């Protein structure tokens, strides 16, 4: 199965990047966060460098691309396949993965559609039937949030939680709560309410000095004061029922792709919001998907589908067979930046769980 997938993938993604089994752990922990540590295998070399067993291919391939793309920032399509290692509650910790990374293509719609098409073709070439694809869109959610004109910090937090429905709902709940939120630091609160940045900065600087905290190595008095003022404004903010309803209704949308553009337009008309550029991109992508010959009856637009990782920036793809997710992917334009690239590198890709695909077959 892995060989079939790889042969197919290499045909559409001819570039190669060698990915060692033993990887430096830092890039994974820096991007996916400390939380990942519980789910991967960490080991330390004799000189104290922390390594891990390859938990996935995307980050190593992006690292390779950032290091080698060099002067001629040409777009590349990498195919990969092999064993990845993850902590599992029971059973094996070795899993087979195959997939594709499309890095550096500035035409995002083209790259997105190629990615969805290649995923669908790869899966069906292994002989499986009834592949269902769900698509999410991080940008559209960001637009919906933006349309509500929330205090910036609240908006950022909502967008950041996109993809974790429980976290999003908890926030909506908290924002509609009428009870007064206060933190008891009276002097600071009064300064913040008065918008007295200078006084607040002094207040914080005094506390930092008393604690021997160096302002150069972390949060500065200025940053703390500014966030305090934001927070006081937020604490007086309450999300109205109409906005909460709009958010919830948007996130509940799950529509066949053929009807998605029309449904989104209807939602926009009814609620008075404009999807703007993100909407245009969505409509262009939907048209391009149809033109590329994708079977839209097997594709669903699922508004709540996302990943609450900061580097995801666009579409989210999930392929399933009989309710079992066998592949996932999406657009992560911020990943290469996190990995040290000075230029933004558009990135989209997917990963197939070969084991689950085998079971589904």
């Amino acid at each position, binding site marked *: 199965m892995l060989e079939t997938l790889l042969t197919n993938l290499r045909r559409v993604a001819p570039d190669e990047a060698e990915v060692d089994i033993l990887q430096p752990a830092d890039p994974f*922990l*820096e991007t*996916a*966060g*400390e*939380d*990942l*540590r*519980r789910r991967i295998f960490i080991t330390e070399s004799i000189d104290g460098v922390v390594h891990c067993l390859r938990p996935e291919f995307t980050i190593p391939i992006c690292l390779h691309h950032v290091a080698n793309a060099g002067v001629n920032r040409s777009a590349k399509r990498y195919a990969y396949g092999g064993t990845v290692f993850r902590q599992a509650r029971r059973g094996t910790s070795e899993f087979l993965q195959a997939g594709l990374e499309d890095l550096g293509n500035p035409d995002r719609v083209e790259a997105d559609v190629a990615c969805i098409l290649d995923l669908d073709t790869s899966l069906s070439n292994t002989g499986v039937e009834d592949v269902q694809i769900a698509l999410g869109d991080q940008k559209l959610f960001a637009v919906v949030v933006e349309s509500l004109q929330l205090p910036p*910090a609240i908006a*950022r*937090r909502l967008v*950041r*939680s996109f993809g*974790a429905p429980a*976290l999003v709902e908890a926030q909506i709940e908290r924002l509609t709560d009428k009870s007064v939120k206060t*933190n*008891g*630091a009276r002097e*600071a609160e009064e300064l913040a309410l008065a918008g007295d940045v200078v006084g*607040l900065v002094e*207040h*914080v600087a005094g*506390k*930092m000095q*008393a*604690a*021997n*905290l*160096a302002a150069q*190595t*972390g*949060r500065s*008095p200025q*940053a*703390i*004061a500014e*966030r*305090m003022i934001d*927070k006081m404004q937020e604490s007086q903010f309450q999300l109205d029922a109409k906005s909460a309803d709009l958010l919830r209704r948007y996130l509940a949308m799950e529509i066949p792709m053929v009807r998605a553009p029309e449904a989104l337009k209807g939602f926009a008309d009814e609620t008075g919001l404009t999807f703007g550029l993100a909407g245009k991109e969505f409509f262009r992508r939907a048209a391009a998907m149809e033109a590329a010959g994708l079977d839209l009856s097997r594709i669903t637009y699922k508004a709540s589908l996302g990943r*609450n*990782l*900061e580097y995801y920036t666009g579409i989210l793809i999930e392929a399933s067979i009989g309710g079992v997710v066998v592949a996932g992917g999406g657009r992560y334009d911020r990943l290469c930046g*996190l990995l040290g690239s000075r230029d933004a590198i558009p990135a989209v890709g997917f990963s197939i769980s070969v084991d689950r695909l085998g079971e589904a077959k």
Partner: protein
Amino acid sequence: MKLVIAIPSKGRLKDQTLKLFSDAGLEIEEGADTRSYQTRILGRDDVEIAFLSASEIARELASGTVHMGVTGEDLARETIHDTDNVVEFDLKLGFGQADVVVAVPDAWIDVDSMADLDDVASDYRARYGRRLRIATKYWRLTQNWFGQHGIGVYRIVESLGATEGAPAAGSADAIVDITSTGSTIRANNLKVLDDGVILNSQANLITARQASWNEARQALRAEILSKLSTCC
């Protein structure tokens, strides 16, 4: 075959454990040789007492090489994966109280809750070129707690002593540490977050589910539990 109970080998935890057992009519023989790591309960030869360090006790409970042990809930939860399926917390002993808490610099007037910390962590790298760093020796408790609050983007800096000094030393931004009265935290110009108490810990009598149990040992366990429970 005897029932093996591990108890702390030094400090206040040891003294208080010895006193508790003694109050319950289970006098632990310390013997002439104070360096001995093994002893028994006076007048009984069905129970073996093993003196171990509190963290060793947690490890031995995890592997089931002792039947029961006295140690802090914090150490048990930190050391033993899938804690509640591996051990049973039989009895809170009423001493060794300490809380495992998340604390941030007092100067962070805008941070009072885990949600605030999440906000701060989320753009830390964009602002300061690195992730928010948490100093702690409680890896597992920290990862679980932060995970529960949806915080993933931070780094743990291992700290094996004087954790509360890490922010002033510049080696971390905030800490997860143990505190009994909060005075060390305050003395270091730190504050505990409103919802930052990860665990109210104290010394517990703990049973290792995976130790070799038979009817006789189960009966012994029940007897010891009933005697101790009248005293704490």
